[in-house]
């Protein structure tokens, strides 16, 4: 499925107005600028590890914008940073994870969002269960869950999708096929040319979309959310995109893929494509872009400053939230750790 051609030509009905598309454009710029900033901070030793979204912005933003944050839930994997912000997570809470302020990073009360997941695929059954809970309680709403084509090889994917089919859960599964799981190319991940087709095996709909086409992603996601809310069950959307960046800041993709492949992919950049369309609509210009970029930088600065103003967690933090109430021995350990005040962390 494609709605915006490589050159920005609209191939069907636009699923959003110009204003919303401008907003999407700003979010994609914010996403890319976040990547750049955190890679820089990582190189400076201020961030442990960071995985960029570069190249996948249309998949991430286009889908996230299809949710109603007051009604729907989002279950992220680990690379959909800005989607979490779209869903209502303040930018400074988003950044706090990378800057070591774990309590500030927590999802605030009222934001329908689960934390990031580092165990590939493990969030999928949670999303099914959450969607099931909505259904059992007759709550209107859908759950959108993100995962990669690598995650789609895990047993958790299969079990979560199959269960979702059986209970007709209001679930939207967004598979972001960025062609790589670390160094493993998609064709070594599965012999299936079409991962969306897996949905047939679970009794629901699967839609492959051009993941670099914000409109296609958004239209597919919006329809899937509507169907979920209407009680028509789950949908699997495969967003076909490309991870232009490295897997994360410890990775060097030159060890496993040719530059030419990346250059090719860069020509299908999702931001360029939307920019072309917006420009052709008279709704974007170099000047507007310059303003947007400046504003994004200011937002990032402010959010980082906000995080840096938060106290660094101390020893106490490792005992907090392990249990509602600490059992005897763990309480002893807490006291030992805290009273010794060996605050050995930086």
């Amino acid at each position, binding site marked *: 499925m494609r709605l915006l051609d490589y050159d920005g030509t609209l191939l069907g009905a636009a699923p959003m107005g110009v204003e919303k598309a401008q907003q999407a454009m700003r979010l994609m710029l914010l996403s890319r600028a976040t990547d750049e900033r955190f890679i820089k901070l990582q190189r400076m030793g201020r961030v442990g590890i960071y995985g960029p979204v570069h190249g996948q912005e249309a998949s991430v933003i286009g889908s996230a914008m299809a949710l109603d944050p007051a009604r729907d839930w989002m279950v992220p994997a680990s690379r959909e940073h800005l989607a979490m912000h779209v869903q209502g997570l303040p930018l400074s809470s988003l950044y706090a994870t990378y800057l070591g302020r774990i309590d500030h990073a*927590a*999802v605030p009360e009222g934001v329908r969002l689960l934390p990031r997941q580092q165990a590939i695929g493990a969030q999928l059954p949670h999303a099914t*269960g959450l969607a099931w809970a909505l259904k059992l309680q007759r709550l209107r709403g859908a759950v959108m869950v993100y995962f990669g084509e690598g995650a789609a090889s895990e047993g*958790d994917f299969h079990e979560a999708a199959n269960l979702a089919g059986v209970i007709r859960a209001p679930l939207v599964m967004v598979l972001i096929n960025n062609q790589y799981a670390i160094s493993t190319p998609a064709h070594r991940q599965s012999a299936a040319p079409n991962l969306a087709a897996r949905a047939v095996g679970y009794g629901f709909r699967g839609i492959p979309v051009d993941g670099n086409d914000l409109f296609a992603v958004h239209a597919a996601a919006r329809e899937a959310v509507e169907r979920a809310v209407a009680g028509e069950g789950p949908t699997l959307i495969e967003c076909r995109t490309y991870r232009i960046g490295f897997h994360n800041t410890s990775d060097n993709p030159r060890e496993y893929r040719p530059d030419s492949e990346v250059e090719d992919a860069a020509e299908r950049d999702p931001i360029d494509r939307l920019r072309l369309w917006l420009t052709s609509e008279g709704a974007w210009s170099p000047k507007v872009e310059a303003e947007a970029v400046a504003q994004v930088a200011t937002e990032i600065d402010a959010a980082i400053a906000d995080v840096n103003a938060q106290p660094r967690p101390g020893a106490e933090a490792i005992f907090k939230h392990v*249990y*509602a109430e600490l059992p005897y*021995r763990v309480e002893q350990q807490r006291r030992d750790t805290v009273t010794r005040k060996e605050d050995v962390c930086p």
Partner: protein
Amino acid sequence: MKQLSIIEAIRAALVEEMERDPSVMVLGMDVGRLGGVFRVTKGLAARFGEERVADTPLAEASIVGAALGLAIGGMKPVAEIQFLGFTQQAFHQIGPQLARYRFRSRGRYPTQVTIRAPYGGGVRTPEFHADAIESQFVQVPGIKIVAPAFPDDAKGLLLQAIRDPDPVLYLEPQRLYRAIRGPVHNGDPIPFGVSRMVRDGTDLILIAWSAAVHLCLEAAETLARTGASVAVLDLRTLNPLDVEGLVAAVRDCGKAVVVHEAPLTGGFGAEIVATLQQEAYGDLDAPILRVGSRDTPYPPGALEDHFLPTVARVVAAARATLEY
């Protein structure tokens, strides 16, 4: 007071909680119309509807993972895993996910999930159906582990498990399901972390949980015939562990033996010994021996008596300790 089997006591707790709290639900394989392979949930689907007593596909990881999602969404799921041995298929959803979700979300998403699973040997089951792997969960911070040995505890501890804000692994002694009946209070949840002296004695204490408690009671009876006064302590919960209760019990007797159905090496008995030799070193008059299953795979049913701890082996360990 009503005399119930353990199965009936568990069912009674489920019914009470489901009556009391509409967010309590049951899910698992065959738990609905059939009422589970042991009929523990028999009648529940008819009473509370198939939405609240839901059959799931044959996929353990998704049962646990979905239970976590259900809890995040406001339900209080009681998930049945058909046999504890099959929690291995769900292991990555239990330790790293369910048990850590409160921590990971910094308290935003407490996960009030109970996992029920029958376990333990003595009933000639096929492979995996008897595996006593509770100690693998003991090293999972964040999940509580409950292992009743009597109908009354089965009910009271399950009430607590369902109401407890933390996830709980509730282990059901398969061998005792229908084998014993006992009085069951119509009352309150039983708090976790409180062991129970089920037989008094002054020379030695046998420490156990779940079905092994009954083995210890038999052994104590045997030993009594030769004049030894042997106490039996039922831990009831492995996490939280009643360290004070253990220390006090050992202080009184000076000698102890730990008995469990899990293979000896790396069993929870090791933790009890390590804890006691640290916390009650001065009170110990002999090394604490452990009696467990053999360090082999669980054998086919016909051979399980060679594998499992027996009264004879408990008595032998107790005698060696008494004579130390």
